[in-house]
């Protein structure tokens, strides 16, 4: 469970997050939508401290992650992250991309790590690409490997930062399918996305962020079907 209380984040004079309070329950799938520059990616990146919050509190399973006494690496082990631009390690094969963190962080032995990696590749449908280097994969394939890489650490929570925004349209589906499967398995997920159809289908709850605040939230039916705020209506009218 993630409990965010009055989260603020500034970059210099730019106040990006202006007080977000939100609770994400176990096994909940939360989609975050909103205009560009609204702070939705920053919000996500604060959850695993890729951005350091300016003020506020973030409790993950009761542990205050903004407290410097807590080991940030341990906290991140438990939260997988998938990036817009994949960020696979280009100097390593697909298999090594996936096994590196389990081996070097958790000390899993090579044989076990590779066996697990192959299982994960099967799950994302890329077993035959194990020995290939990332440059030789399509964007959709790279993103599926990135998801497998994050899953290899057995996280309880997965964070997705616009996972399909850098993909060619015909590759969006294959990535969304993988995320959809994870949702069915009960993974706790926070997904920043511009895919409204996908958000509507997969989310338990949708947050509309604008101006660094959660302006409106609710089930997909509520938020997409009957938005209350004027800004939400305007945004949805433009993207739907």
């Amino acid at each position: 469970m993630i409990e965010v209380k009055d989260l603020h984040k500034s970059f210099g004079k730019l106040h990006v997050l202006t007080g977000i309070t939100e609770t994400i329950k176990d096994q909940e799938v939360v989609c975050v939508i909103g205009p560009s520059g609204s702070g939705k990616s920053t919000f996500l990146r604060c959850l695993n401290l890729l951005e350091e919050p300016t003020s506020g509190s973030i409790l993950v399973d009761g542990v205050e992650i903004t407290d410097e006494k807590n080991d940030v690496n341990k906290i991140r082990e438990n939260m997988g992250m998938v990036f817009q631009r994949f960020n696979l390690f280009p100097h390593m094969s697909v298999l090594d991309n996936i096994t590196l963190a389990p081996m070097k962080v958790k000390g899993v032995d090579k044989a076990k790590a590779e066996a697990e990696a192959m299982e994960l590749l099967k799950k994302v449908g890329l077993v035959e690409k194990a020995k290939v280097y990332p440059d030789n994969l399509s964007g959709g394939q790279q993103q599926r490997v990135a998801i497998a890489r994050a899953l290899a650490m057995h996280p309880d929570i997965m964070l997705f930062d616009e996972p399909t925004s850098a993909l060619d349209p015909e590759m969006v589906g294959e990535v969304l399918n993988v995320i959809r499967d994870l949702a069915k398995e009960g993974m706790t997920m926070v997904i920043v996305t511009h895919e409204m159809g996908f958000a509507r289908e997969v989310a338990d709850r949708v947050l509309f962020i604008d101006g660094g605040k959660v302006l409106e939230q609710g089930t997909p039916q509520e938020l997409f079907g009957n938005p209350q705020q004027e800004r939400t209506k305007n945004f949805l009218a433009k993207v739907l």
Partner: protein
Amino acid sequence: MPRLWDGAAITIKITAIAVCVGMVIGMVMALSKLSKIWPLRIISNVYIECLRGTPLYVQILLFHFGVPGLMNSLDGVSGFHFSVMTTAIVVCSLNSGAYIAEIFRSGIQSIDRGQMEAARSLGMSHTKAMRYIILPQAVKRVIPPLCNEFIVLLKDTSLLAVIGVTEILKTGQIYIATTYAPFPAYIGVASVYLILTFTISRVVNYIEVKWNMSSK
């Protein structure tokens, strides 16, 4: 002219040792310069600025004649000195270390920020991310400028002739002193340098191509 090749052996020896030591110094200084710990940043900045900002020729003279002179005047004992090879290796290593530090630093900074973020998001410490993700990519990327530094240093070892290191140039000068034939001597000297630097660039090129084929 067989003696030119004896000189070449010494040039190669000094260059090879200085580049190896220089790479170690360079890596340490590059990481220091990028460190969060400010005293390390200051030390590496001072080191890099001082060694890049003064001529190698002056550094050789300062180390070989200036430092022993200072020490002898301090404790009143005369006769302290460095062997010419000690000076050659120490000064060339320190000098190339400063340039290599900047090469490594720019290499590290050229790696996309997303690489570090991806590594950290998997629970890797900063050190582990550097070691397994950033440095392997950075080192590969800096091979061309590193090769360039290698060639520059090899040529610059000719400055060591001034303190009497019998490297390529010095052997040529000795030859002139006995034969009074400067043209063949200097042409010979220049040719040996050219052969060496050309060989280095070919070998590095080969390694680069092979590396690029094996991964990525």
